[in-house]
């Protein structure tokens, strides 16, 4: 009907239930769809940014904690590495001091090596043995628990390393000794023989372990040395004893792993200068574990609460909103229907007026002509057929009266009814109307029973129109009864309004007919017996006077019209029917 052109993208994508205006023709909007769309849109708008901010906060805070934790771990690692390096440095100094370049001859002779070892052991108990190796790799002197005098080390890696670089620290190994140990070898040029010689000191790996144990604090869960080939140089809480295999490659830096038990593990690895070793620091869970847990709990609580509140608010808002739209639609539909009804009445009014006018004049002529013939017959002497003629003329007069009743009613319907209010005693008005109908009721043997409230207050309303209303309804009752029956009319006050109940014991109105009886031209009377306008006019009039008319009916028992008239009419002239 009034489908608007699509001006924007929204007009194209929005469903009917949102953009359509309501009218009488279309099937009406789907409120369920409307509710779902509104709800979804509002929830998205309400919770989308919340979730985004929450997600960002979560991400950045977790990053922040991770960074701070890495820094702490790095800082710790650096500190530990420094202490180890110092320890190694001091060890090397001791060995270097012992292997002063000019002592080669001194050390290989007599018990001098033994004295040196004894002196060293007195200071540092972990020195296991000492050996002096000449340029060819042959051990010239040895003192220690093993018989290694004369052993040839020329092919050994440590020897070549020490020979070339001056100082060498070996990995931890078992070797001949079968207990883990490592060696520090220092090479020197003997000034007398002009040959390079090497002093090698073997140190018990337990000493390394001891040192690691002393620098291990609560801040870390595991701390151990590993060589570049991935062999543990000291015992690890996680990976086993010394010389066990470290499961991952040794790579300097910080890594985050999940342990076999599913624990979150941070692993920091740093190389120790001048050694084949790297230090590994393991931290089982985040250092800021508690902070993180608190943050998570708080974030989730706040976001869940916000979403819950959002959903509740949006739900109630949407419910209210759709309810409002539904009510507005209903009101609009009612108004449209009423306007349509008024339009119908107006066109019927125009039609009725036209028909009424056109028929009235010829009817008047027929009436007068018949009257004249009657007059003339009265003046004439008796003749054959005179009485028959008179009877027929009477028939014509009656038919004219019937036609007159119809045309007058049509014109009554067409009447432009401006309202002239005055004080009206309804009981009197009803009696007046009944006088009009006295003859018809007498003729049809219909009795009237009145139950009028005596102290009924006066109503401010339009006398002529109320007369028309009661005339129509009572006429209708008479027509419904036909012959032999009872019409009871009761007046009383109900909630500040006057209520008139007009009840007949006619055949009643069928349920299928009942909703239509106030529609124009709807009639159940035989063709030619009714215009189908009476009740429609009545309905229009009573609404205009601010009142109401309702009908109840039961087949075989009768029909009751209840007319409510306000004491001070809220006159509604919106429907006045213009016919002039």
């Amino acid at each position, binding site marked *: 009907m009034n489908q608007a052109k699509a001006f924007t993208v929204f007009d194209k994508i929005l469903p009917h239930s949102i953009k359509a205006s309501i009218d009488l023709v279309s099937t009406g909007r789907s409120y369920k769809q409307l509710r779902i769309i509104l709800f979804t849109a509002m929830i998205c708008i309400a919770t989308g940014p919340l979730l985004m901010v929450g997600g960002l906060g979560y991400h950045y805070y977790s990053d922040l904690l991770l960074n701070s934790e890495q820094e702490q771990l790095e800082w710790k690692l650096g500190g530990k590495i420094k202490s180890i390096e110092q320890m190694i440095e001091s060890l090397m100094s001791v060995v270097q001091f012992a292997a002063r370049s000019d002592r080669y001859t001194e050390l290989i002779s007599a018990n001098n090596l033994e004295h040196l070892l004894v002196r060293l052991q007195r200071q540092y108990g972990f020195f296991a043995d000492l050996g002096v190796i000449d340029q060819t790799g042959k051990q010239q002197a040895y003192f220690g628990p093993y018989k290694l005098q004369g052993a040839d080390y020329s092919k050994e890696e440590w020897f070549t390393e020490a020979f070339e670089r001056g100082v060498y620290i070996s990995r931890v190994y078992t070797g001949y000794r079968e207990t883990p140990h490592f060696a520090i070898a220092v090479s020197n040029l003997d000034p007398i023989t002009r040959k390079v010689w090497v002093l090698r000191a073997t140190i018990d790996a337990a000493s390394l372990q001891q040192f690691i144990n002393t620098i291990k604090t609560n801040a870390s869960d595991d701390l151990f040395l590993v060589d570049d080939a991935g062999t543990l140089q000291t015992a690890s809480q996680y990976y086993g004893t010394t010389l066990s295999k470290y499961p991952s490659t040794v790579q300097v830096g910080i890594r985050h792993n999940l342990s076999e038990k599913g624990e979150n593990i941070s692993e920091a690895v740093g190389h120790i200068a001048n050694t084949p070793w790297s230090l590994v620091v393991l931290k089982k869970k985040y250092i800021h574990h508690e902070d993180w847990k608190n943050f998570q709990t708080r974030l989730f609580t706040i976001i869940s609460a916000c979403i819950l509140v959002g959903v509740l608010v949006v739900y109630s808002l949407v419910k209210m909103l759709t309810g409002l739209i539904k009510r507005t639609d209903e009101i609009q539909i009612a108004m449209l229907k009423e306007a349509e009804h008024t339009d119908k009445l107006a066109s019927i009014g125009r039609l009725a*007026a036209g028909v*009424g*006018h056109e028929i*009235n*004049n010829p*009817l*008047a*002529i*027929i*009436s*007068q*002509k018949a*009257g*004249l013939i009657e*007059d003339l017959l*009265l*003046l004439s002497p008796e003749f054959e057929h005179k009485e028959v003629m008179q009877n027929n003329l009477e028939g014509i007069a009656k038919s*004219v009266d019937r*036609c*007159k009743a119809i*045309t*007058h009613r049509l*014109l*009554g319907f*067409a*009447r*432009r*009814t*401006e309202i002239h209010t005055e004080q009206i005693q309804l009981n009197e008005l009803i009696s007046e109307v009944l006088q009009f109908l006295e003859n018809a009721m007498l003729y049809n043997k219909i009795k009237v029973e009145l139950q009028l409230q005596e102290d009924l207050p006066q109503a401010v309303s339009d006398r*002529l129109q109320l007369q028309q209303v009661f005339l129509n309804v009572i006429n209708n009752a008479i027509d419904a009864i036909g012959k032999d029956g009872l019409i009871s009319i009761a007046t009383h006050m109900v909630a500040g309004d006057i209520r008139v109940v007009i009840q007949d014991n006619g055949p009643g109105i069928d349920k299928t007919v009942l909703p239509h009886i106030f529609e124009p031209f709807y009639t159940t009377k035989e063709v030619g017996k009714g215009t189908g306008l009476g009740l429609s006019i009545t309905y229009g009039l009573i609404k205009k006077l601010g009142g109401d008319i309702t009908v109840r009916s039961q087949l075989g028992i009768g029909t009751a019209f209840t007319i409510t008239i306000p004491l001070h009419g809220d006159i509604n002239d919106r429907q006045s029917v213009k*016919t*002039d």
Partner: protein
Amino acid sequence: MTDNQSKQIKLLIADDELEFASTLVTRLELRNFQVTMVNTGQDTLLAVERDLPDLLLLDLKMPDLDGLEVLAQLREKHPDLKVIILTGHGSFEAGREGMELGACDYIMKPVDLNRLIEAVKLVCSDG
């Protein structure tokens, strides 16, 4: 049928429906009224000037002048002239307007002659 006792009432019928008006004239004459008939608004005004009737039966719809216009013009010169509106154009509105212009009654066609005579007598006896 004739009423010789009362003074003969002089009626003027203004109606463009010739058949209706002439029949009404005959019937009223039978009842001892003195009746003249005109069929247009202008003729009505002239007839009133020529011979002032006791009462004018005025139709509302005539070809040249509307009944209400005739009534309005007559009111200026003959404020006491009694007028009954007799019309088939039963507009409540027009009826009220006519009454406001001084018409004594408003009767809708078709009308029972006795009812009309009653109304005429009532209006004339009023003064």
